[in-house]
């Protein structure tokens, strides 16, 4: 670790911020904006791959911005988990840009880059207050992305989304202030050290702050009592935005893993867990995760809109992840870390697959709400490749054998078998998988085989007039990433197992 390599830690945040600002300046020159976006996205991917390779051997480092020492300055931390999340974000950013094609507004490229800067910052920061700031950066960009190309439904969802996240930010600030009040620092590593020697009189305050923070992250992750904003929001977003949003719930999961893993040993370690606050989050994660899982499956079964159906599948994946983290063993955490990229890629691909259905029904690249109805009585016939895409993606999403979803669920069930909660995990995960399969199969049979009761679908639009090429490339990219994960399941699992084992030590 010498030379300029440590400075690579700051680039995934700085580059998209600068590039985004630059593309706002050059707003009138579409060619330049496109070039900036292409260069930024590909270098983001390259940078995160370099970081991934560098950290794969277990290297991790803290980067002090401006070389201010940790308790005073703000720090970024790079380790395996952060590098992995950066890579996922870069892939989703590329998929989002491909899927957008020429659909987004002129400011779309800048917003996408700001969103990526916020996401990367949240994954890299080693400071609680900076986590809040990067949450706000990514949320501010996501508000604008969600409302891109407005419309009543999107505005309604946007108002709810902004309100819920404003409340979440307020809670975050309260929790951060309480941590500062008891420990006098907001650097996560520093906070961890101070909490270990906390006087008993302050333990209660730290506990309240920790649980408040858990509630904030549960809002982001859409866990059960706090996740009702998600289906409406994701169901109203444009397809390329929904693809990018597939990684947003993962920010909440990541933060739980990072903050509660470091501060409260939510991820059990070989090191002593004699801290008074050890395992603070664990009793909440498992029940919340299982309940979210059941609710998500029920929601998928009840959905009457294609995009809302996929949004409920995002809730299912959040529930699975929370339940796996709630088990609190290293294999279960490794299984969760395998499930995390899989579910992100799969949800993104599924949003694209249903968009193809709607565009085919509309005969244009701007489907209206009626085109997204599952039971519209307008079956999509003679479109074998749309059906094939839907079928393959649904297999991956539902976790049926050939895809990465199957490996993820098998890993999770295997990891759960060694814990006392295995009966709960096995029954709920398998039941919800069955319900998801039923929901997807019913949706597909209505969409592709159903009786035709409404006006016929206009003849297929030839060529790429419906913006199909970029969408198709994005879907293939996401499915390809899932395929790579499935093909190289063993090396990736080894990597993730080491990641999970190293988490509490940082």
């Amino acid at each position, binding site marked *: 670790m010498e030379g300029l390599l440590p400075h690579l830690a700051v680039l995934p945040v700085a580059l998209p911020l600068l590039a985004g600002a630059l593309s706002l300046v050059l707003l009138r020159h579409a060619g330049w904006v496109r070039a900036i976006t292409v260069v930024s996205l590909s270098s983001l991917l390259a940078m995160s791959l370099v970081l991934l390779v560098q950290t794969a051997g277990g290297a991790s480092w803290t980067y002090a911005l401006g070389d201010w020492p940790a308790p005073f300055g703000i720090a970024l931390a790079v380790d395996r988990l952060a590098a992995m999340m950066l890579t996922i974000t870069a892939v989703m950013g590329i998929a989002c840009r491909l899927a957008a094609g020429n659909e987004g507004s002129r400011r779309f490229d800048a917003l996408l880059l700001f969103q990526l800067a916020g996401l990367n910052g949240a994954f890299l920061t080693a400071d609680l207050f900076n986590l809040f700031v990067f949450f706000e950066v990514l949320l501010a960009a996501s508000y604008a992305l969600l*409302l891109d190309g407005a419309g*009543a439904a999107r505005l309604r969802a946007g108002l709810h989304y*902004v*309100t819920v996240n404003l409340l979440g930010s307020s809670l975050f600030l309260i929790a*951060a202030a309480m941590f*500062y009040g008891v420990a006098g620092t907001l650097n996560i590593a520093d906070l961890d050290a101070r909490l270990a020697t906390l006087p008993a009189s302050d333990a209660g305050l730290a506990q309240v702050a920790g649980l408040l923070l858990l509630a904030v992250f549960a809002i982001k992750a859409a866990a059960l009592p706090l996740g009702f904003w998600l289906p409406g929001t994701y169901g109203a977003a444009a397809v390329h935005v929904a693809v990018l949003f597939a990684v947003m719930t993962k920010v909440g999961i990541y933060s739980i893993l990072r903050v509660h893993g470091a501060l409260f040993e939510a991820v059990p370690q070989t090191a002593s867990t004699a801290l008074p606050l050890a395992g603070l989050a664990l009793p909440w994660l498992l029940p919340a995760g299982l309940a979210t899982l059941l609710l998500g499956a029920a929601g998928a079964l009840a959905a009457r809109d294609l995009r809302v159906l996929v949004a409920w599948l995002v809730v299912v994946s959040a529930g699975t992840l929370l339940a796996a983290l709630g088990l609190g063993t290293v294999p279960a955490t490794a299984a969760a870390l395998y499930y995390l990229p899989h579910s992100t890629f799969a949800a993104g691909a599924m949003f694209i697959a249903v968009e193809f259905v709607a565009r085919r029904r509309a005969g244009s690249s701007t489907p209206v709400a009626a085109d997204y109805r599952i039971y519209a009585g307008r079956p999509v016939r003679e479109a074998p490749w749309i059906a094939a895409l839907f079928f393959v993606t649904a297999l991956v999403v539902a976790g049926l054998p050939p895809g990465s979803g199957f490996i993820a669920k098998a890993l999770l069930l295997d990891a759960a078998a060694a814990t006392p909660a295995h009966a709960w995990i096995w029954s709920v995960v398998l039941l919800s998988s069955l319900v998801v399969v039923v929901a997807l199969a019913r949706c597909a049979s209505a969409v592709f085989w159903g009786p035709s009761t409404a006006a016929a679908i206009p003849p297929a639009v030839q060529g790429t007039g419906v913006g199909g090429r970029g969408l198709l490339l994005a879907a293939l990219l996401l499915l390809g990433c899932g395929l790579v994960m499935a093909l190289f399941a063993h090396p990736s699992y080894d990597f993730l197992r080491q990641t999970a084992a190293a988490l509490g030590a940082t």
Partner: protein
Amino acid sequence: MELLLATAIGAITATGIYLALRSRTFELVLGMTLISYAVNLFIFAMGRPVAGRAPILREGVPTTLEHYTDPLPQALVLTAIVISFAMTAVLIVVALKLREVSGGDHVDGGDPAGDSGRERGDP
């Protein structure tokens, strides 16, 4: 001072929550604004503010926290104020646009009569 500050924060938060739960976007915006004021006061309070001590180093005074107010929470509050102000602005813009599109200021996009405007928009 502690009692006064705590009571004020509690009262502002309670008012904010009440307003945020109302069904009009204007009251929602007011409520969110009040909640963010309360949060800013709370951050300030968690820095243990002391009357009569500046957060700036002075000559001849030892550089320990016993002689100064902790400056860090004030920096945090400044950041929080900027962010919550910007986010409230976003909320107002969305609320205005929703009112323009749906013809009412109900948070679910309905008319002023109070019923939700689901029949106007998409399912």
